[in-house]
């Protein structure tokens, strides 16, 4: 998950996110999708890590 800066919390009528900040997060997300296509290290599932942090 990628967090994007947001003022005044969530589920809040005053919550506010700038599109510039959204773009930073979206670019990281799309960058990772490109890595998925190019790096064999990501073959297989990546969702099995659960435990006491």
């Amino acid at each position, binding site marked *: 998950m990628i967090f994007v800066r947001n003022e005044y919390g969530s*589920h809040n009528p005053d919550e506010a996110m700038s599109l510039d900040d959204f773009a930073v*997060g979206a670019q990281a997300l799309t960058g990772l999708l490109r890595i998925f296509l190019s790096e064999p290290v990501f073959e*297989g599932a*990546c*969702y099995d*890590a659960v435990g006491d942090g």
Partner: protein
Amino acid sequence: MAIRAEESAWFDIAYLGSGGAFGLLDPACLAIARSDNGQSLEATLKQRGFDPQPIRARRRLLDPSGIRAYLELHIEQGPTLVARGLPAAVVSAYAAASAFAMHAASASMAIRAPSGVPTGATPSRPRSPFFTIWRASGCNKKRPARIWFLTSGSCSPTRHARAEQDRRWTRFVLDLRSLSDTTMEVVAAEHALRRSGISAAYRVRIDLGATSDSPAAVMDSRLRARLMSLLDRPFEMASGAGTTRPCSPRSASRTP
């Protein structure tokens, strides 16, 4: 894939959307009432044109073997990124969560807080007097070596199964978060122990309800490392580690 209702604002069920998609929900959850109108999950699903049968049969609607990873862009619900002047962060882990739903009543018409702050009539109050009671009891001063957070997520007048003519019940939710399962267990046990002392000190009766629990989940290290490399100002933080603000009835009414 498209899921919703991962948060428990409407139904006191952890990860309702993904749990339903992967056939992991207890079918008993279909009877859980929606927080604002009391309608069951089953009735709500039917009303919205969805079939509750897969939940009843614990049937998967999505096969995890065909999914490599789940990626999500999400607004931060707390103030950390604003305070640090950062546009985005990589989430390292989801904190474990336990929501303790309780009902409390005094013999008078309204619950009294130790500070004299009235409750019951002010359901949108972001920090309830009950939070003050728990804090004053010393519950959140223990074991500073481990990080954990306690939030009062709801405090509102309610109908209760044990309602009596001379008592006015208040629904009260404590939300506990930590990355440590051990800390979660220790604090939950202390919470239960303190109930009797608080009841006596403030002359209230407290019925403990069921908790909704979800374990801590550490994000995949390979995904985290790659995402960090894609940020100009890389920063990692845990989700739900005390920065999630409580959802007030006022704001919940605006959520679709």
